[in-house]
């Protein structure tokens, strides 16, 4: 099996507070990997390391190796091209206050695509890939903020797809959505993993069971256990994992 991400001996400090301890993790190619664990356990922090959004946090200090296809993302790869390759969908939709079209086209334009025909094509394919084309094809020029919450989140996914990433990071993408919208996003994930590697942070263990191929369980800044989702949920080796999944804390 080939690995998309290899993380070796990673430690992370916010100022004097250590948020991640000795993380070692391999993320396989074209699968869905879920990060689960109670809040404040470091799962979002690790996710944000993968496209260096942690750079924004003042006093954040990352140690260890993060390899994307064998290249060190903190040393060898230029940060904007890293984020082009590793897209991200946030907890709350952060569509820009512009038209749907301009939202989707923002990424490609950023990376130098100027031709109208080419942009049109990208917008259409991405919206279709995100299974939202039918809902918004007649209102591409209208403000994206007029869509419902679930639609907005899928538009965010479409926008992330538009820069042709290799990996999509999702930070609790459904935590603010209703069950039906959640289901749609989940279906989308299963669809997308054929072409993309997906890492998803979730609070919802059922969600991890439904969509993830592998699951990592975080506690107090450490990965307590990692493995195929089925085994983690049915036969956890670690005592703490068993307690968490059994609903004893978190």
């Amino acid at each position: 099996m080939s690995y998309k991400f290899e993380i070796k001996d990673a430690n992370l400090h916010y100022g004097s507070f250590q948020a991640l301890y000795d993380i070692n993790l391999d993320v396989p190619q074209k699968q869905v990997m879920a990060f689960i664990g109670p809040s404040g356990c470091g799962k979002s922090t690790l996710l944000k390391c993968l496209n260096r959004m942690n750079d924004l946090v003042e006093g954040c200090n990352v140690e260890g190796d993060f390899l994307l296809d064998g290249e060190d993302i903190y040393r060898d790869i230029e940060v904007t091209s890293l984020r082009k390759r590793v897209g991200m969908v946030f907890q709350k939709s952060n569509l820009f206050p512009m038209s749907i079209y301009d939202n989707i086209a923002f990424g490609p334009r950023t990376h130098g695509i100027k031709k109208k025909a080419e942009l049109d094509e990208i917008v259409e394919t991405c919206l279709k890939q995100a299974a939202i084309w039918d809902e918004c094809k007649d209102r591409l020029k209208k403000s994206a903020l007029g869509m419902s919450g679930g639609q907005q989140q899928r538009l965010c996914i479409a926008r992330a797809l538009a820069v042709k990433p290799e990996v999509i990071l999702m930070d609790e993408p459904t935590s603010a959505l209703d069950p039906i919208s959640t289901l749609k996003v989940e279906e989308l994930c299963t669809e997308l993993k054929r072409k993309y590697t997906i890492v998803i942070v979730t609070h919802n263990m059922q969600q991890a069971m439904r969509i993830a191929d592998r699951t990592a369980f975080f506690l107090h800044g450490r990965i307590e256990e990692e493995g195929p989702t089925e085994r983690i949920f049915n036969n956890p080796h670690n005592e703490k994992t068993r307690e968490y999944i059994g609903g004893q804390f978190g």
Partner: protein
Amino acid sequence: MQAVFLVCACISILCVAVICIYMFAKGCPAIAKIGVAEFLGGKDWFPTNSQPSFGIFPMIVGSMYVTAGAIMIGVPVGLLTAVFLAKFCPKRLYKFVLPAVNLLAGIPSIVYGFFGMIVVVPFVRSVFGGTGNSIITASFILGIMILPTVIGMSESALNAVPSQYYEGALALGATHERSVMRVVLPAAKSGVCAAIVLAIGRAVGETMAVVMIAGNQARLPHQLTQGVRTLTANIIMEMGYATGLHYDALLGTGVVLFVFILMLNLLLSAVTSKKER
């Protein structure tokens, strides 16, 4: 006691009402006496001739020129300075830049005019030729004077933009600069527009600084190095000795200016109420 507070609260309404009534009641008949078309469209201003003519068109054009010039200088610089303060400025530097901007707002216009006289006029004279008392000089000084207005309002508009827009743009692989200029700045559009409207108002209404450096010739200018007279300058220069119809014509000039400012105010409240919605 509540009644006292209530009466005090009415004071600003009362002031605006009285000012409006006086300006229009005194100024409009004056304009009517001269004739609206002749007053607004007339190209000649010879108030003291035996056959006087009262055309303020040159002054309207003059005010427009210097205001446009001020906007062209002050808005880009002010906007980018606001971007700097909101998104680029290291914390340690902020403590020095912000007071500088605030103090710029506090400097009296007469001091700006004086600075224009002793520094900018000679400079413009040696670089562009002419007397130095010109559209360029006035635009430059006004451009500086509107900086604090543009910076203050734009910066707070930029700071009010939710940070998730910025993060979203970064996550798509945009640089810090592109995220700020293409996502954060457009999102702050209405605040920036309000700042520009306010700045236009300040530039149009400025009197002392302009009268000291703009040359004040009441004729249509053909070059940027020529002097102009603005509406405000027209009033301050001649009101002291004007009598009769001449005085009325100056009141009329005031009314034109006043109407323009009121329209800008309406525009401003339209822009800000749009933002709230």
